[in-house]
């Protein structure tokens, strides 16, 4: 393939499926922010998978001194009931991470399908779906939750449902924009011209070209979900017996942990939420680079620019 004469590559023509994972790895490793994010997430994943290795104590065993401050035996102190806070924090990672990922996945899926369908079909479909997206965008979340709290049993399932409903619309508009910008690309016109059905084109021809944007949407959603899930649980709309950082915050607040002397019962999960959110946000920087080659850092020439002479035959 001839080298383009001008030093800006067209990112769409540069995409290839086989090289995508290589490029992703390259983008993550080459970008400090993204690498930091990746490290955080990997650590979190490890903690979620093997909590027992880090905190062997049963997080729910109420056998220790109550409301104790941090000590060498209890790194973050104990709860009002005598449970080890550090253990709770570690063991809560799993459910928190699972809920975050599931909600992000479902919401990303919904926003992709609805956004792209709206863009592809255009016309009346587009108008209807756009209104639909807008309605969900402006839904007042808290009143809705309070309403639903009266009907849904408190817990992870309800939390997941509510979060999905209220977070999918956010990225749908962006995915719709992207869909609009590519719907008249020649290869899609060619697909229509050969008689493909609309659904096929959306799923097989359009969505695979948007993987960077979809991945970036997923990560952006995850940041939102982490924080929002914790907030909802803090407000009491979760099930306080489930092991999640948000419920820890709720319990800590209920027991006035800050006044009682084991502030870490609240600060611990708070910091964990922030860290997880930051992890997703940092990793997202890798996608900026993949999606737009113009943002790639210009890598220094390996020889410092000193080599001269003829090119080798």
């Amino acid at each position: 393939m001839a080298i383009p004469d001008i030093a800006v590559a067209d990112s769409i023509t540069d995409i290839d499926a086989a090289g995508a994972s290589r490029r992703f790895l390259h983008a993550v490793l080459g970008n400090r922010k993204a690498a930091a994010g990746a490290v955080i997430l990997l650590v979190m994943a490890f903690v979620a998978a093997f909590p027992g290795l880090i905190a062997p104590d049963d997080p729910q065993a109420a056998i220790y001194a109550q409301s104790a401050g941090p000590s060498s035996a209890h790194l973050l102190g104990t709860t009002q009931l005598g449970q080890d806070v550090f253990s709770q924090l570690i063991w809560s990672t799993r459910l928190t991470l699972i809920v975050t990922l599931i909600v992000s996945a479902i919401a990303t899926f919904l926003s992709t399908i609805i956004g792209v369908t709206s863009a592809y079909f255009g016309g009346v479909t587009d108008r209807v779906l756009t209104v639909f997206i807008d309605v969900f965008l402006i839904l007042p979340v808290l009143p809705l939750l309070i309403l639903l709290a009266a009907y849904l049993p408190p817990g992870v399932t309800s939390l997941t449902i509510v979060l999905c409903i209220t977070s999918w619309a956010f990225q749908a508009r962006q995915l719709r924009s992207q869909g609009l910008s590519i719907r008249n690309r020649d290869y899609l016109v060619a697909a229509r011209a050969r008689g493909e059905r609309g659904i096929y084109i959306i799923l097989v021809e359009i969505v695979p070209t948007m993987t960077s944007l979809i991945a970036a949407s997923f990560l952006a959603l995850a940041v939102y979900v982490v924080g929002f899930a914790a907030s909802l649980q803090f407000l009491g709309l979760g099930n306080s017996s489930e092991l999640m950082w948000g419920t820890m915050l709720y319990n800590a607040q209920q027991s006035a942990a800050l006044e009682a002397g084991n502030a870490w019962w609240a600060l611990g999960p708070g910091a964990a939420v922030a860290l997880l959110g930051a992890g997703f946000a940092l990793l997202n920087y890798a996608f900026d680079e993949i999606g737009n080659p113009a943002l790639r850092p210009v890598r220094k020439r390996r020889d410092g620019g000193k080599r001269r002479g003829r090119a080798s035959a």
Partner: protein
Amino acid sequence: MAEPLLEVDDLTVEYATDAGETRAVDGVSFTVGAGEFLGIVGESGCGKTTLLFAVAQLLSPPGEVVGGKVMFHGRDMVRLSGGELRSIRWRDYSIVMQSAMNALNPMKSIGAQFKDTLQAHGDASANDVRRRSTEVMSLVGIDPAHLQSYPHQLSGGMRQRAMIAMALLYTPQLVIMDEPTSALDVVAQQSLMSKIKELQRNLGFAVIFVTHDMSVVSRYSDRVLVMYAGQVAEAASTEAIFDRPLHPYTRGLMTAFPSLRGPRRELTGIPGSPPDLARPPSGCRFHPRCPDVMPACLEREPELYPVDGAEVRCLLYTERAEQARQTV
């Protein structure tokens, strides 16, 4: 012999890509005399656009000049500082890009952009601006009332003319053009080219004209540089190139044009495609596609040999050139 206006000597440009360094322009040398029209032709990947950017000092990373000189008015432009470049840019040389829509600001009127250019490169009073803007618009054949128009209100041909008018604001001695007619239809193209030629004759500036379209070059240029794979394949007067093409590539190009008049013949073009500059072929870069390839062509890289007033980069001519050198 008069001092050449521009002298490019062994210019080499490389791009740093993920795959390593690629030489887009490899040891290119040529001169342009005052008032001369030089056409640079070649196909995609030959390096002509990179060459043009390098000469006009518009290269940005990852592209970089790694060797050679560009002597203009006795100074090497590659080594000039930003300030020194600014003092000669647009006054002594100017540039017309391929697509006016890429170069013109869609949010500003033509007149406002002329004013910006005039004020960026010199002190110009409002009167001067108005007078000069009107002058150049008339020069290129656009009603000066269009100074108030925005680029999207003009047709493609008129936009390109506006670009040329902008390039002539300071009556430079050299105008560098990158395929200014390629986005236009054939009638607009011909109209624009004849206008450029008329301006050149009247104002006396030299032109470096990069294009892939041999027909434009044949009618309007004095000399032609044929580029292939980052190197000059052949350099000669226009007449010589068209009547006596020497390099097999040039000869191939000549036969690749179906003609509108005259007998209908079956043509063959040139088989294969231009090489990947990251991994150029061994020896002569054209050898995989050459109808006259010899065994030596795979090993020896030919130099640019002088032959009958032209220069050719082809081993077919080494004996003749060496003979000529020896007899001198």
